[in-house]
């Protein structure tokens, strides 16, 4: 598929119309998605109706964008990958990012699969369908925004929105070979994003190129009165960072992120990417993030605690699944939630309820919040010495479907390189940086992660684009 930039050029030259683009996408989805299973739903007629009146003078005029099925688009279903909402909920309003996308001329088209309520790292926790990695369909696409990454890799979308609570944009982007950017906490409105962990969630772009990520980020950034955590920080011209020189920028290499547990092939691929950045003028500096080993425990306490309260809204009163076997109101809550939620969601609600419960709050939740302060401090101190931090995104390439399904702990441990950015609230990007090869000769993409200072997404775009331009890893699976 063309990139956003290429599509816009075709529109300007008259070679292509937005309706053509939607029809081409619809055809590809028809032929490809039976195998990939990345879209939960898509409404081609609605998209064509919008395409017909697209204003091509706008920055994203007539550009179709796939939306993770956790972001409300008025009149469309929003399942969150859950039986609780599947077939039982139609969004009655547009999320903040959708209003902004529409104002920039974009067309939301297609609802991308995800782990149920964004809880997972493989999209296997979707109650709707199992999405396959387009590079090797026996493997997972990553998660929780696995559908958003897979539709790009499989040429079923130009660009997509995902959400990232502990790596859910960057990790699937890495495993599917596309670009994924998690903005700084507060940069983008969360209004209309069905909340998982409110102090960690952030919506961001998933695209074919860094330049496209800049364009999409530009459109969705900025204050929204409907989200009190969305800051009034000025939004720079992100596109102005595309093409900027990276000579002399200091790139920190956290020694804890290149230690035990990192697949040797992933390690050498990421190290080669860092050498490449060095050849472009960047200066690598070894740094330490000493509290890295506590990040996973901290994250899984804080995120589940927040999830247990956020998911209390699924009470079968206002929307969603209502059990037909309930004797009274309490029974209705209990049975509806048992019937509507999948295993991982229930597991996390139980853990979150436990760490917040009387007698355990101080030992787990409060302790984790204090360790979160130490993790933030690690980054604050590191960013006094360096401009960016470079690391792998994932310890291994995409694993086989079913490989970790029965071992939640093993799945959690694979989030080690991405979750700290959410705890610290900083921004990060995953950029394709090469491939590993499986025993049966398949190529699996590897991602380079760059982490930036708060509200310095421009630096991610600058370095990510400089790297991307100097390499040839940007491609799709088919």
């Amino acid at each position: 598929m063309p990139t956003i930039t290429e599509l816009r050029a075709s529109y300007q030259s008259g070679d292509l119309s937005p309706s053509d683009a939607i029809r081409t996408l619809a055809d590809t989805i028809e032929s490809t998605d039976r195998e990939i299973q990345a879209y939960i739903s898509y409404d081609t007629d609605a998209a064509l109706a919008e395409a017909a009146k697209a204003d091509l003078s706008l920055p994203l005029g007539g550009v179709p964008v796939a939306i993770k099925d956790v972001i409300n688009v008025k009149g469309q279903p929003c399942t969150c990958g859950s039986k609780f909402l599947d077939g039982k909920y139609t969004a009655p309003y547009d999320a903040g990012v959708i209003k902004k996308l529409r104002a920039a001329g974009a067309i939301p088209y297609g609802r991308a699969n995800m782990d149920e309520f964004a809880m997972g790292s493989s999209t296997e926790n979707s109650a709707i369908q199992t999405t396959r990695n387009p590079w090797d369909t026996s493997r997972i696409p990553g998660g929780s925004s696995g559908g958003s990454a897979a539709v790009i890799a499989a040429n079923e979308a130009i660009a997509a929105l995902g959400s990232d609570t502990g790596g859910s944009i960057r990790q699937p982007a890495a495993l599917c070979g596309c670009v994924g950017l998690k903005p700084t906490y507060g940069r983008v409105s969360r209004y209309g994003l069905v909340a998982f962990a409110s102090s960690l969630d952030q919506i961001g772009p998933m695209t074919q190129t860094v330049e496209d990520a800049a364009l999409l980020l530009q459109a969705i950034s900025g204050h929204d009165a409907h989200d009190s955590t969305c800051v009034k920080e000025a939004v720079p011209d992100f596109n102005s960072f595309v093409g900027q020189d990276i000579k002399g920028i200091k790139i920190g290499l956290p020694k804890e992120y290149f230690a035990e547990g990192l697949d040797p092939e992933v390690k050498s691929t990421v190290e080669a990417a860092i050498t490449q950045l060095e050849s472009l003028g960047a200066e690598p500096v070894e740094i330490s993030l000493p509290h890295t080993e506590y990040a996973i425990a901290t994250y899984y306490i804080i995120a589940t605690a927040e999830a247990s309260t956020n998911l209390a809204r699924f009470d079968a009163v206002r929307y969603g699944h209502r059990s037909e076997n309930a004797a009274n109101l309490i029974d209705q809550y209990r049975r509806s939630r048992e019937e509507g939620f999948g295993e991982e969601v229930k597991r996390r609600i139980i853990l979150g309820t436990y760490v917040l419960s009387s007698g355990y709050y101080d030992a787990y939740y409060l302790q984790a919040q204090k360790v979160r302060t130490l993790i933030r401090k690690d980054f604050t101190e590191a960013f006094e010495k360096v401009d960016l931090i470079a690391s792998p995104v994932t310890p291994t390439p995409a694993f086989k479907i079913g490989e970790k399904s029965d071992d939640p702990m093993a799945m959690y441990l694979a989030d080690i390189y991405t979750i700290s950015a959410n705890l610290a609230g900083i921004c990060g990007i995953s950029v394709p940086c090469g491939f590993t090869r499986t025993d049966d000769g398949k190529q699996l993409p590897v991602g380079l992660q760059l982490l930036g200072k708060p509200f310095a997404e421009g630096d991610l775009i600058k370095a990510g684009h400089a790297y991307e331009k100097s390499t040839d890893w940007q491609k799709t699976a088919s």
Partner: protein
Amino acid sequence: MDVTHIANLARIELTDDEISRFDAQLSQVLEYAEKLKELDVSGIEPTAHAYPIFDVVREDIAHDENFSAAEALSNAPAQAQNQFKVPKVMD
């Protein structure tokens, strides 16, 4: 962990099978989380949000996006007299 008690607090009617499975799996997670207790956090302030966030207040007047009762009820599993309908709470 007393999973039955916690499931009751969380208003989820777990099956016996789920209770025993979650007990085993979450014990493993909590055991892993024990490592947080190694750290001396005396004098460390807890972080609730990555950035300082303040209450945002405004005049209590309806904004332009008037969300009608019909729209609010559009996804309700049951409704009556323009309200959400639930099983009887009191006798």
